[in-house]
C-alpha cells in the first residue's frame, strides 16, 4: 500500500512508534521534534541512517534562546514525507516561553507498515534507541544538555548533536556595496 518508503523512513517510523506507545487511548503520547532530531543525529553517527547526513543549523530552543545543532535535513524531509503519506500526525503547540514546538505520533495506518518490518531492521533501530538492559533511552533535551538516559541503569550518553565540526577555510574581507 505504501510504496516508495525507504529503509530510513521505515526506521524513522519505527522509532516514532516505539516512543509513542501507550495503552491510554484518551491521552496519546507524542514525540517532540528536537528529541527526535537528536535520535536521528545519533543514528547518523552510528550508521543506522545510511542516506542521511547533517549540517549545523541555528535552532530556537524551548527557552526561546538559539543554539547551533547538527540537524539532518534529510531526516526532516522524510518526516514531512511521512506526514504527507498520513503515516504520522503532527501537533503544534506553544511553549511557556512563547516559542512553538512540533510533536509527532503515528497514525492508525502505521500498524500495517510496521508489521512488515524485518527483525534485522528492528534490531538496528533497537541498537540505537535501547540501552544494553533493553530499556528505551529517554532523550533529555535542554539548552545545556542533550543526552540519552537509561533511567533503569542510571546510564547517560551525551550526544554530539551540539558539537559543530570545524572545517579549515580561508577568507578575505568583502565590502558589499549599498549603492
Amino acid at each position, binding site marked *: 500500500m505504501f510504496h516508495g518508503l525507504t529503509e530510513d523512513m521505515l526506521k524513522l517510523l519505527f522509532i516514532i512508534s516505539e516512543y509513542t506507545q501507550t495503552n491510554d487511548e484518551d491521552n496519546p503520547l507524542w514525540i517532540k521534534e528536537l528529541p527526535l532530531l537528536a535520535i536521528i543525529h545519533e543514528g547518523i553517527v552510528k550508521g543506522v541512517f545510511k542516506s542521511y547526513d547533517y549540517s549545523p543549523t541555528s535552532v530556537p530552543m524551548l527557552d526561546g534562546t*538559539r543554539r547551533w545543532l547538527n540537524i539532518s*535535513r534529510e531526516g526532516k524531509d522524510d518526516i514531512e514525507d511521512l506526514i504527507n503519506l498520513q503515516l504520522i500526525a503532527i501537533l503544534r503547540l506553544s511553549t511557556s*516561553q512563547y516559542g512553538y514546538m512540533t510533536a509527532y505520533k503515528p497514525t492508525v495506518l502505521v500498524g500495517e507498515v510496521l508489521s512488515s518490518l524485518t527483525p534485522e531492521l528492528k534490531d538496528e533501530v533497537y541498537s540505537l534507541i535501547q540501552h544494553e538492559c533493553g530499556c528505551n533511552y529517554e532523550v533529555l533535551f535542554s539548552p545545556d544538555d542533550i543526552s540519552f538516559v537509561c533511567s533503569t541503569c542510571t546510564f547517560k550518553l551525551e550526544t554530539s548533536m551540539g558539537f559543530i565540526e*570545524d*572545517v579549515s577555510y580561508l577568507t578575505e574581507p*568583502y565590502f*558589499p556595496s549599498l549603492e
Partner: protein
Amino acid sequence: MTSKSQIKDELEEFVKLGDVRLILSEYIPCDRNSLESINQKLMAKKSMQGKFVTMLMDSWPERAIFQSEKKCSAVRIIEYKPSEYIQCEATMQDPEDTIVQDEMIGMRLSHEGNMIYGCRITHITGKEIGKDPTASLDLISRVIPDIMYDSSLLIDTLLTHHQRSILDCVFKGTANNRYKFVGLIASSISPAFDEVSLYLDGEDYQNELEQVLDDIRSVQEVSTDRTLIMIGEGGILLVSPDWRKYESLVIYYCLLRSAELFVDALFNRISLLNDELNEARNLIERSTEGDYSVITKAQNLLTEATANYTILNSTGGYLDRGFGLINEQWSKSKDSIDSDLLSLVAIDDGFMALLNRIRDIDLVLNSIRSEVEGLQTLLSTQIEQQMRRLYSALRDNTRSTSEVIKASERTGDVLDVIQLVLSGTIAFDIIMAFTGEYTTPLAQLSLEYPLLFFLCAIILWVVIVIGLKKAMDFLGRRIEKEHMIRQSLNIRCDPAKIEGYLADKVVVSVDEEVQDKREVVRTHYLFDASEIEKATVTLTYDRKNGVLQDLVIECKGTNVMEIKRKVLRELEECFGASIPL
C-alpha cells in the same frame, strides 16, 4: 594546525558554488553617538594599523599591566565617515584552533543600526575556491556558524556598554548565539539547471540548499542574464555571472530580514517581560492577602522587570529611527535595480510591513509601561501598609515597655521606703549596742494587760502601714501615670455615622488598610474629658463591612474609666444603640 576538517560523517555533495561571497547581516540598536564611541575605540582618526580590541574593562587603571582574554580581534579601519558609518576589516585570533581558519572579514557599521559582515571564501579544506563551482554547500554550511559566532564575539568587543545591555536583554543572555541573516553571492552553481524548479525537488538538491537557507520560500530566475535568486527563512542565495548588478538588492534584503529577526526576538522578550510582571502581580496579590514574606521577592522582581522594560523601551525608539532611515536609503537605491526582480523579491512590501510591526511594538511597550506603573503603585501601597502595621506594633511595644519601666520605678520607690525603715532600725540597734536593753515604766503594762498591749501593737502597725501607703501614693502621684484601655466592640454600625462623629473631633492621624474583603480604618483623635484632662482615642472600624471593631483610650491620670464611659456614651448617642461596657 592542519588544513582538514573534523567532519565524521561522509558527506554527499550535490550542490556546489563558485566564487562565493558570504554576507551576514544583523540589526543592533545604534545611533550617531554610539558610532562615535566605537570610532574612538578604534582610533579611526589615526592611521595606525592592526589594532587589537577587547571587550574587557580596565578595572585597575593605576596598574602598568593589563591582562586580556585569550581571544583578541585585530581591526583595521578601511573607511569611515564621522557619525555615519565605519568600514573596517577584522581578523579573529583564536589560539585554541587546531584547524587553519584564517578569518578576515569586512565589517560595515552604520549609525542606523545595520551591521554587515562580508567575506569571500577563498579556500575550504585546503582547496581553492575559484570561479568554477567547487565549494559544496555541505562545507559552506559548516563555515557559516563559525563566522557567525566569531563575528558576534568581534562586534561585542566594539559595542558600547548600553548596546551590549540591549543585546543581552533581548537575547536573554545568549547574545553570542544570535542568528544573523545569511546572504550568499556566487558567480556560478553546479548543477546549473535550465528549469529552476528542479532545485526544489524535495530531496537532495533542496535539502542541501536548505542547509544554508533554511526552509526555502521561493526560487526565482531573471532569464535575461541567467541570474538565480533563492530565498529561504534564514538566508538568500544569489547566483549570477553579473552579481554586482544585484548586490545592493541582496544587501537591503538581508537588512530587512535581519531586522525582522531582531523584531521577532524583541517581541518574544516583551512577552516574557509580561510574564515577569504577571509573576510580580501574583506576589503582590499574595501580600495583600496577608503573606508579607513575598514583598521583598516582588520588589526584586519588579525592579528587574522595570530595568528590562527601560532597555526594551529604548530599543523600540532605536528601531523606529533606524529603519525609517534605512527605508529612505532604500527608496533612493532601488531605482537602479531591475523592476521585475524587485517585484519578485517584494522588498518594498517587506519594508512597509516591518515599519508597521515596529510601530505595533510601541503599542505593546506602552501597555507594558502602564502595567509597570500600576504594579509599582500597588507595591508601594503594600509597603506603606506594612510600614503602618510595623509602626502600630512598634507603638504598642513601646507602650508596654513604658508600662514596665513605670512599674519598675514604683517598685524602686517601695524599696526606697523599706531602705529608710531599715536604716532607722539599724540606727536604733547601734544606739542599743551602747546603752543596752532598757525598760520604761510602761513596760509593766505589757505584763499586766497583755491583750491591750497586743491591740495597741496591732493599731500601731496599722497606722504605720497606712502612713507608708499614703507616702507611696504620694510618691506615685508625683509620677503622672499613663493609662491605656483597649475595649473590643465588634458591633454593627453605619460607617457614615462614625465618620460624621469623627468629623467633629481633632483627628491626629488616620491609617487605612484596604484589602479585598475589608477596609480597616484606624482613626486617632483627641478626646476632651474635661478642661484639664485630655485623652487620645483610637477608633478602629471596618468601613466596607460596617463593623466597629475596637476602641483604645490612652490618658494620663487616674480616671480613665470615667473617660471610657464618656467616650462610649458619645458613641451610643451617635449610633442610637447601647454599647455594653
